[in-house]
């Protein structure tokens, strides 16, 4: 009995230590993440006064009713399609690249990874403005096109500019998890497949791809979620029209001054992301 008691005490002490180690992060997240989130949720049930202020009284579901009307639904669908297209394009560009990095020598690998990270060294907003210049009708692309006897490039403020900007901005978030998954790959499995009469494509389809699915799932989630709520890129490269979720929500808070509706939109986007993430990881988990 004495021994059992000692063991229980040791386990309690270990769990206490674990809690203490995690405590600073818990406190920080509760203060600056959970509480603001709660405030947003509460505001979604508040009333917008005629002056555009928010009255924390007369709790109602008006804002939520508006979320399910036609105009926001169109914004949701448009943003969803844009985020999906961004994810697919990122995946198509990143997979071969991550594969290529993962199969280099360790020294070359680190160098290439640093190159992938370099864009992070400058501000995203600045980079997006650079992109605006690049895609604009006075920009280098347009000049080259005209020098070659073509038309000026008319990409800016189109959905294509937004897509190009998002793919550019989020590609590293796809490359890194894919690289991590491929770098962990046991390449003797691919050799085994080749040894067992699989050609290069079959070996990839039957072995490499299924085994790198955790990277595909993680990368897709990391790209899809921020792309769904993106604000900076649609605002700068798309000009805010037609609106996507990010700039649509900002519009509610800053221009329309309808905080309850903006809050309800924000909460619904989060719920959608939560459901999508759970669904995606579940599906990914089954294929592993």
């Amino acid at each position, binding site marked *: 009995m004495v021994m059992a008691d000692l063991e229980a005490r040791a386990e309690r002490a270990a769990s206490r230590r674990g809690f203490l180690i995690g405590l600073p992060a818990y406190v920080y997240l509760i203060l600056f993440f959970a509480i603001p989130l709660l405030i947003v949720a509460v505001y979604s049930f508040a009333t917008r006064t005629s002056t555009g202020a928010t009255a924390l009284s007369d709790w109602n579901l008006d804002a939520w009713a508006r979320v399910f009307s036609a105009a926001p639904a169109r914004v949701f669908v448009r943003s969803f399609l844009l985020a999906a297209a961004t994810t697919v394009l990122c995946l198509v560009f990143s997979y071969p690249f991550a594969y290529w990095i993962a199969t280099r020598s360790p020294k070359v690998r680190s160098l290439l990874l640093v190159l992938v990270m370099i864009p992070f060294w400058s501000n995203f907003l600045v980079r997006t403005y650079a992109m605006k210049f690049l895609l604009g009708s006075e920009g280098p692309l347009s000049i080259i096109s005209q020098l070659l006897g073509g038309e000026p490039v008319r990409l800016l403020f189109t959905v294509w500019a937004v897509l190009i900007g998002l793919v550019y901005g989020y590609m590293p978030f796809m490359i890194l998890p894919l690289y991590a998954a491929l770098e962990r790959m*046991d390449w*003797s*499995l691919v*050799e*085994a*497949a*080749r*040894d*067992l*009469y*699989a*050609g*290069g494509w*079959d070996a990839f389809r*039957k*072995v490499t791809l*299924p*085994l790198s699915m955790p990277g595909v799932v993680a990368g897709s989630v990391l790209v899809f979620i921020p792309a769904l709520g993106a604000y900076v890129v649609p605002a700068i490269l798309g000009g805010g029209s037609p609106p996507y979720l990010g700039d649509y929500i900002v519009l509610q808070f800053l221009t329309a001054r309808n905080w309850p509706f903006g809050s309800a939109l924000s909460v619904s986007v989060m719920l959608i992301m939560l459901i999508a993430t759970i669904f995606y990881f579940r599906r990914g988990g089954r294929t*592993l």
Partner: protein
Amino acid sequence: MSGAAVELAGVTKRFGEVTAVDAIDLTIGHGEFFSLLGPSGCGKTTTLRMIAGFEHPTEGSLRINGEEMGLLPPNRRPVNTVFQSYALFPHMTVYDNVAFGLQMRKLGSNEVAQRVERVLDQVQLRQRADARPSQLSGGQRQRVALARALVNEPEVLLLDEPLGALDLKLRQSMQVELKDLQERVGITFIYVTHDQEEALTMSDRIGVMDAGNLLQVGTPEEIYERPTSRFVASFIGDINFIDAVAAGGSVRLASGVELPISTDQPDGSEVTLALRPERLELFDLDEPIPDGHIRLNGKVSRRMYYGDSYFYDVDVGLPEPLEAREENRPDVEVYEVGEEAIVAWDPAATNVVTD
């Protein structure tokens, strides 16, 4: 079938500055159990990988069944590999692992099912067909790896240290199983190992490699009893080396004693004699020794007990003591440390080896 199962001629593999395999010539016959034996980094695995098609020779010719392999990829060679770490597909069941090769060759599903079930019966894993590799023990994984290769009925089966990850008892029973299996299916086995015992017990022939060179090829008996080089002699089993000088049909030891051992080396050249400890016998000083045996008088300086045998270090006036192994049997006398004794051996058991 034409030509040998596998034929290497002047096969060299260089990785940058490093020569992993250096101009190897080797012919392996149909149905042979051939082992490539050597320490890690000796080039044995690289040689195997060249036969499998994972690496391509820098120089030389590699033929399987008389056909030049050239740059033929692994999937188009009539060989299969059992990998060192087994390399079982973790996301597939045992059945799917074994069926993989047949499915890739687009065989009908009935035939695939029949052959997979037959081979799973052979390795006694039929009831684990739906398990994932991670749910199997080491020995079971090993048998799946074997089944996955054998189900394809390759001309040549390549095995890269397939028993290396198993513990001693299991390894020994798998050695017997593998040898039986090879005799039953009649497939050529090329077996890479650094374990001398494994090579000796299972092989029809052994090729000993060191630093990219194939030093000696022969039956297990030839390799063990008649090593031609110091490396082969010392890599396999225990051995005594005695430095000597060739002197007209005999050799002279550092102690001045002349032994009636002939060499093909010119008089006055330095030679190394190699003697297995179990070929040396100890006798009392007044005991008669067998006719024609060489004798050296000495004193026991150390005794080690191994259960089934005793190892003696006997000081015979040479820089190094001679090591003698005597079986622990009722009719074999046991000597004490400090006791004087005769070390005797048949001169035919002496090998003159090169460095």
